[in-house]
């Protein structure tokens, strides 16, 4: 009896649901959708990448825009978050990720037109906080149990370890009492379509091995007692992962990210990003006041480069051929074709802050406050 009834009513419900969803303004849906506004194309955009022929840019207020005509016109994608998106990465022409504040991660499977919330940072952070509490409890219990069986000098070491573990437990408990604060994600990088990393403030590090269907909390594996920000992430051809951090530190992960090492570059300030040259495997950490450091040996030794700018650098890109572009404050844009030995300034119009750069087909596209535009000088132009 019920079956025919069910058949007849289902399309009706579908039609009703469709009607309701059409009647509602697009931003009133359950998810925190970004407002679709004509001004999005001229808002603060923070990163740009190419997905095949298409350009995709992310920015403040959950803005994601794409252009199929080399930046001449931009379409705002419907995005199920309205927080600031800081960086994006495309593994190929179709699959890409955007990360941002609230620890949110979005994924697109069609080259940036449609986006899904892959990681809801607030709820995931609540889970991470619980895990952290559980881990701290376990450590304390283990240490107490061990301490009960030991005495003497070994016990003294254990006692100190226990004190530390108890402090960590207090911190973890405190976190559970406060409103959940997922630190903002500042960078994302994928080795291929499945294996990737997302890094962020206060030592946040996330790892996925299945295209982001599951993001594991990985920050606790990195020895980072001061909770320095991870402002950039990249990897080289030999499987090493690099995190750009503060106080001149670059963190290097080896063995698939199982072991981590803090590298001192000799710099004292902050790096805002890190880049590898696909042609040479050199690593470049860039940041405050035009600073660029290079390592040609996988992070062991670093040299400061003459970037020819004193503006803070916030974005960088490398072409397959090994041309490197760095952009930043006050329309700063510098280019190197010799793996960083020398730089020359590119003419960028205006005096706005630049945040990201993408190189496609010999043209450069930058993002910044006021949207996205093509950079006047092509990297292949005569030296």
């Amino acid at each position, binding site marked *: 009896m019920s079956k025919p009834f069910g058949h007849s009513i289902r399309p009706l419900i579908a039609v009703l649901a469709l009607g309701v969803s059409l009647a509602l*303004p697009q931003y009133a849906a359950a998810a925190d959708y970004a407002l679709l506004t004509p001004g999005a194309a001229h808002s603060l955009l923070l990163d740009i990448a190419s997905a095949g022929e298409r350009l995709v840019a992310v920015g403040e207020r959950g803005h994601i825009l794409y252009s199929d005509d080399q930046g001449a016109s931009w379409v705002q994608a419907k995005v199920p978050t309205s927080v600031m998106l800081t960086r994006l990465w495309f593994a190929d022409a179709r699959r890409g990720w955007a990360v941002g504040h609230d620890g949110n991660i979005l994924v697109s499977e069609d080259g940036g037109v449609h986006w899904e919330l892959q990681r809801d940072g607030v709820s995931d952070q609540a889970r991470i906080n619980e895990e952290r509490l559980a881990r701290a409890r376990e450590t304390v219990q283990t240490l107490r149990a061990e301490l009960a069986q030991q005495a003497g000098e070994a016990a003294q070491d254990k006692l100190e370890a226990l004190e530390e573990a108890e402090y960590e437990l207090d911190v973890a408990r405190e976190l559970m009492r406060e409103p959940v604060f997922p630190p903002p994600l500042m960078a994302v990088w994928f080795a291929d379509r499945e294996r990737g990393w997302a890094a962020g403030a206060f030592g946040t590090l996330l790892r996925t091995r299945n295209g982001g269907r599951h993001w594991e909390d990985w920050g606790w594996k990195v020895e980072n007692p001061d909770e320095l920000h991870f402002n950039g992430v990249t990897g080289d051809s030999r499987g090493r992962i690099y995190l750009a951090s503060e106080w001149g530190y670059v963190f290097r992960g080896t063995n698939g990210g199982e072991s981590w090492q803090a590298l001192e570059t000799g710099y004292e300030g*902050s790096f805002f990003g890190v880049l590898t040259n696909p042609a040479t495997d050199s690593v470049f950490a860039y940041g405050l006041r035009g600073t660029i450091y290079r390592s040609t040996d996988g992070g062991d030794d670093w040299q400061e480069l003459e970037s020819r700018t004193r503006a803070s650098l916030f974005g960088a890109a490398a072409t397959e051929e090994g041309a490197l572009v760095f952009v930043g404050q006050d329309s700063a844009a510098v280019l190197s074709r010799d793996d960083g030995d020398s730089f020359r300034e590119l003419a960028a119009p205006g005096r706005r802050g630049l945040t990201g750069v993408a190189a496609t087909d010999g043209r450069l596209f930058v993002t910044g406050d006021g949207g996205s535009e093509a950079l006047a000088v092509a990297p292949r132009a005569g030296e």
Partner: protein
Amino acid sequence: MLEQQPLHYPAVRTASVPERLIFGARHFILAFFTLATVFLGWQAWHLQPDASFAKLLPQQHPFIQNMNDHMKDLRAAGASLKVSVAVKRGDIFNDDYLSTLGQIADEIFYIPGVNKNGLKSLWSPDVRWTMVTEEGFEMGSVIPQDYDGSPASLQQLRTNLQRSGVIGSMVADDFKSTIIEVPIYDTDPTTGEQLNYLAFSRALEKQVRQQFESDNIRIHIIGFPKLIGELLEGIGAIFLFAAVTLLITCVLLYVYTRDLRATLAPLTCSLLAVIWQLGLLHLFGFGLNAYSILVPFLVLAIGVSHGVQMINAVALQLQGEVDRLQASRLAFRSLYIAGMTALISDGIGFITLLVIDIGVISELGIAASIGVACIICSNLVLLPVLVSYIGISKKGVYHMRVDPQRRHPLWSLISRCATPKVALVSVLVAAAGYAVGIAGARNLQVGDLDAGAPELRPDSRYNLDNAFITGNYAVSTDILVVMVETPVQGCGLFENIRLIDRFGWYMENVPGVQSAVSMADVVRLTAMALNEGNPRWQTLSRDQRAIDGGVANVPPALMNRDCSLALVVLFLDDHKAETLQRVVDAAQTFEEEYGTDQVRFKLAAGNAGIEAATNQEIAVAQTQILVLVYGVVAALVFLSFRSSVASACIIIPLGLTSALCHALMAWLGIGIKVATLPVVALGVGVGVDYGIYIYNRLTHYLRRGLPMQEAYYQALSTTGRAVAFTGFALGVGVITWAFSPIKFQADMGILLTFMFLLNMVGALWLLPALAYFLVKPEPPRKRESAGEAEQGDHSHVQTG
């Protein structure tokens, strides 16, 4: 005594009560009015200019009420002045310019009313540059501490400016001018005294503009206090207009009467009405504002035109075998009903202005109504009494006579309007005129349409300065402020400030909004600054502590002390009604969509917010006024003539003028605004006079059995001159306003002149045509009473 002597005149037996009262106590009346003049003249002497801003606002409008609710916090934002010092040759990077700038800032510092602590120029130590370094922030004043005017320190200034963020706000993009920001106390913080805007504005002109402007330095000053000063300055020009108007009226009167006595008597009576009106205004506790200062002109014009009717009537009587007193009595008798009707309809027309919830307009209505009451006393009572003493010279009587033997060529011509063919054409032309008026009025807009300060002319110094500053700096002077109410200490809570931020972005995307500024912007920028200028932090963190740090930097112009009110300041492209309505609608949509019990978005403050409220009020009031004025005037006409035909004949020409006036406004680009609202009431209230006088005479002669054209000719020959004179007298009274430096006074002058003159034409041309079709021929039995009617016209008008 005097009353006894002329008993043999038959007229005295038929005298009405008012006539007996007035002419029975002529001495008393003279004495009474002399005393009244002394007393009210003394009152008028103490009349103060009233620059009250509150009276310009529709106080009952929800926007204004919201604004008043938060006035204390809004006032903290304060009034301010921008003084731009521009250099013609070269740029600002030279020692001469910078030292002049310093001198100007020093000079402004000492002008009373300036908030000395807030004064900001390039020289202020708190105009700083900042730079993020590895060690933290590096900062300093933009003009280096060791500035010595050398090329090196000028170069240092240039570098510092690039790092300072004041380019576009304090320094023009082309480096050819800089702005001195001058916050103003509108009430003195120690004495609580209201700032004298006029003195303040003059001090600026004298001590700043005159002293420092040279062939290389130009000074531009804008800001609310300066605007008020300019308006008060402009009001002063009205005294010149008053003199001109008086002179022209005098000439007109003399041309009309050719007699000094007949010129001075109505002029004196009308001036007395003006003095009484001003005295009564002060007595009732009013001041003179930019609108009500126009009322004396109207009173003078209306007074003179009614006075001329009276003089005309007396002169006509003096042609017969009567003395001055008798002539005055007969003139009074023939005119007082029509005169009262006309004046009372004027007064009631003005009283309708009280329905408009804008102080200055209500006061205009009150002042004008008082004025009309004064005219009734001066020109219907005092004037005939006065004339009964002084009389009119033979020359004057001869000039104003009606010679039954000679046909007046002009009146013969105009009387053809009452012939069938001309009447038909006239009615068709009138119908076409209505069509033109209604079609033209469809382009009519609400609100002020010109850029800059709409109160002043587009080419006024203030508006040129305004154009310079808005053109060279990233500032808009059309500002709409949305008040965001939250619980106490709630404006900075993450969810609330996020909504405020979203509102700002939502509004920035509304066409017509250039930019939106709120506390959320300050918090976002602080977050970026505290994170080494990294733009990836330029957002609102979910971490409440990070937000609180930013909230500490929010200036009082964007947030009140206990964080229960945030202000979102919207800078608009212009203040067209369309733009304002779009912005207001968008804000209300957002409030309905997202407003919570915690966060409510309340419209509206700022000059554009006030204008939006005013526009909404005006759009409603415009219709109300039309309906009321016409309803009241039609009812009055009906009551006095007991005839719907009379109402039609008198009202239809008025309606034509109103319709055409709307078309004229659309054509001239004058929007419906505060200043044009009273025009309808004044135009119709005063314009109805012509119709009443002409219709009165016309039916008088029709009753005597004359055919239409002849009756109209007779009507014209007795009252036509007076009607034409009235038209010109009224026109003269208001046309001088057209030269006012205050734009809305000029608009009112143009429109009222148009209405007064066109109403006269309508009465002379269209009224007889309508009468031809509408008035039925009188039955012959009326002839019997014609003899009596000849004594005085009031017999056919309801005497009550």
